[in-house]
C-alpha cells in the first residue's frame, strides 16, 4: 500500500466527515458477495465471502487515519476488485480462464464509475437473485438455506445468526458448512430459473423469506435488535424479488404486504417495560402508518391473477388488523372469512386455532371453545402454550374462572420465554382473584 506519509489532514480540514449510511457494510457485503460469486462461479462462494470480509477490514484499518472516502461503496468495490484480481493472477486453477475473468472484473468496476452505473446496478440485482435461488435451493436442508442466505446475502456473522435463532455459533457454522458442501457436491446452479421451474423455485425462495421473517417476528425469543434486523432483511430481499420482472409474482407482493403490515406493528407489541401486550391493549399510535401504507400498495399489486395463496390470506388478515382504528372496530367477520379459506388449503392445527379466536370474536366464547375442541389434530397442539392461553381467555370471558385458572397454569408450564411467562402469570393472578 502506498499511503502518502501525510498527517491526517483529510480529517483535520473538514469537521464534518461523511457519515456512513446505516448498515452500509452489511448491505454492501451482500451485494459484493453476489457480484464476486458471479465472476468466480458458485463453487467459490467461500472465496467471495472471504474477499468481501477482507475489504471491509481494509476499510477499518485505513479510514480512521485518512478519513472516510467520498464514495465509501465505490471504495469497497474497488478494493474487493483489486483483491480478486490478485487471487486470480496468483491461483493456478484460474489460469485457463484467467484473461476472461480479469476482463469481466475490470469491466464491472469501470461500469460502476461511469454512466453505466444504472445498468451495473441491474446486473448486481440479477446476481443477487441468482445467489438467492442457489441459497434457497430445495436440495439444501431448510435450516441451512436460511443460515446461508443470512450469511451471504445479508452479511450476518455466524454469531449474529446464532443470536437471532437462539442457538450456538457452532451449530450455525455447521449449517453453513453443510449448505456450502451441498452446493459443491450437487453442482447447484447459479441462475434465475426459467419456464415452469421458475414458479416452483420461487415458491421455495418465498417460503424461506417467510421463515426468516417469522424468526425475527416471533415474540420474545432471541436478541431483540438482531430479530428486528431479520425482519428488515427479509423485507429487503422480498423487495428485490418484487422489483424484478422474473420474480414479481402476485405471491411475492402478498408476502411483502404481510411483512410490512407486521413490521409496522412491531414496536406496539410490548409496553415500556418490555411486557407483552395483547392486540386489544396495544397503543395503535405506535403503529407505523407509512409501513402500513406500503403494505396496502403491495396488497393491491398482489390482487392480480387468480391464485389465492396463503400469503394472500395472511396479508388480508394483517391488513384488517392494521387498518382498524381500535380493537372494537376490527372487521372480525372478514378476518373469519379469510381463516375459513385458509383452513381449506392448510390443515395445520395452528391455523385452525387462530381461526377459533376469530370465531369467538364473531360468535362469542362458547363457539370459540367449541371450535378449539373441534380441531381435528387437537392432540398435536395440546403441548402448545397458546392453545391453553386461548382456552383460558375464552373461559374467563364466560366468567368461568376456575377453568380459566386451570388453563393459565397449564400455559405457564408450557411457555419457555420470560416475557410470555410474565404475561401469563399476570393473567393467572387476575383469574384467581376473580374466582
Amino acid at each position: 500500500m502506498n499511503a502518502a506519509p501525510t498527517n491526517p489532514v483529510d480529517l483535520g480540514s473538514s469537521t464534518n466527515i461523511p457519515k456512513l449510511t446505516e448498515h452500509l457494510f452489511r448491505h454492501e457485503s451482500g451485494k459484493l458477495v453476489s457480484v464476486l460469486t458471479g465472476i468466480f462461479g458458485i463453487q467459490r462462494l467461500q472465496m467471495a465471502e472471504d474477499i468481501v470480509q477482507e475489504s471491509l477490514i481494509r476499510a477499518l484499518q485505513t479510514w480512521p487515519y485518512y478519513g472516510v472516502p467520498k464514495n465509501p461503496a465505490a471504495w469497497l468495490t474497488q478494493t474487493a476488485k483489486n483483491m480478486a484480481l490478485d487471487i486470480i493472477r496468483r491461483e493456478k486453477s484460474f489460469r485457463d480462464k484467467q484473461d476472461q475473468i480479469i476482463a469481466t472484473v475490470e469491466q464491472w468496476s469501470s461500469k460502476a464509475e461511469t454512466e453505466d452505473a444504472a445498468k451495473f446496478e441491474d446486473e448486481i440485482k440479477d446476481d443477487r437473485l441468482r445467489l438467492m435461488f442457489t441459497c434457497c435451493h430445495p436440495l439444501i436442508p431448510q435450516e441451512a438455506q436460511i443460515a446461508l442466505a443470512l450469511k451471504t446475502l445479508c452479511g450476518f456473522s455466524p454469531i449474529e445468526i446464532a443470536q437471532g435463532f437462539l442457538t450456538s455459533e457452532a451449530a450455525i457454522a455447521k449449517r453453513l458448512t453443510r449448505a456450502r458442501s451441498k452446493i459443491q457436491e450437487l453442482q447447484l446452479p447459479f441462475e434465475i430459473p426459467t419456464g415452469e421451474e421458475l414458479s416452483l423455485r420461487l415458491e421455495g425462495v418465498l417460503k424461506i423469506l417467510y421463515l426468516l421473517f417469522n424468526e425475527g417476528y416471533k415474540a420474545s425469543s432471541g436478541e431483540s435488535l438482531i430479530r428486528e434486523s431479520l425482519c428488515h432483511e427479509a423485507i429487503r430481499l422480498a423487495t428485490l424479488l418484487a422489483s424484478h420482472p422474473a420474480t414479481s409474482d402476485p405471491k411475492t407482493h402478498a408476502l411483502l404486504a404481510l411483512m410490512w403490515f407486521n413490521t409496522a406493528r412491531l414496536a406496539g407489541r410490548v409496553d415500556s417495560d418490555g411486557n407483552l401486550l395483547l392486540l386489544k391493549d396495544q397503543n395503535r399510535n405506535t403503529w407505523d402508518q407509512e409501513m402500513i401504507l406500503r403494505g396496502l400498495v403491495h396488497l393491491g399489486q398482489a390482487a392480480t391473477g387468480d391464485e389465492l395463496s396463503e400469503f394472500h390470506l395472511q396479508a388480508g388478515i394483517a391488513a384488517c388488523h392494521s387498518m382498524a382504528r381500535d380493537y372494537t372496530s376490527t372487521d372480525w367477520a372478514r378476518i373469519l372469512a379469510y381463516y375459513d379459506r385458509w383452513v381449506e388449503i392448510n390443515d395445520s392445527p395452528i391455523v385452525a386455532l387462530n381461526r377459533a379466536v376469530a370465531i369467538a370474536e364473531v360468535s362469542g366464547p362458547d363457539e370459540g371453545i367449541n371450535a378449539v375442541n373441534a380441531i381435528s389434530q387437537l392432540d398435536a397442539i395440546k403441548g402448545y402454550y397458546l392453545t391453553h392461553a386461548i382456552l383460558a381467555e375464552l373461559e374467563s370471558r364466560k366468567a368461568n374462572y376456575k377453568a380459566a385458572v386451570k388453563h393459565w397454569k397449564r400455559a405457564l408450564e408450557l411457555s419457555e420465554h420470560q416475557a410470555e411467562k410474565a404475561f401469563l402469570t399476570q393473567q393467572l393472578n387476575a383469574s384467581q382473584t376473580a374466582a
Partner: protein
Amino acid sequence: MATEPTLTHQLILFRGTDWHRGLSPEELQGTMSRWNSRIEDLVNTGKLISGHPLANSGKLVSGKKATVSDGPFAESKEAIGGYLLLKVADFDEAVNIAQNCPALPHGLEVEVRPIVPICPVAQAAQMTYEPAAALA
C-alpha cells in the same frame, strides 16, 4: 538544562493485526465509526501530531550480517498495526486516550510510550560525569 515543556509527546501503538477476523460487517462498521470520531476529536483538539496505519507485513533485519528476513507475519497478535503521535498534557492523558480505543473489546492491545526528551542513558551519564559536552 532545558525548561520543562508544558506539553509532552506520547506515542500510541496499536498491537494486533488479527483481532478483526471474526467480526461481522455490522460490527466492523460500528467499530470503524467509533474509531473515526475518536480520531476526529484528537484532530479538532490539536492533540494529534501524526498517525498512520502500517502494512500487515514487512522485513526484519537482524544479526551481525544484517540478515533480512520476513516478518512480522501477515496476521499476529503482537504486530503493530498503526500508531498515533500525540501532543498532550502528560502520560496519564495518553493512557486515558488509549483506554477509549473502540477495538479493545475485540482483543486489540494498545501500548502507550512516552517520548522521552533525552535518552535516559545519556541523562544518567550526564549526572555521573557532569561534563556539559555529553549533551552534544
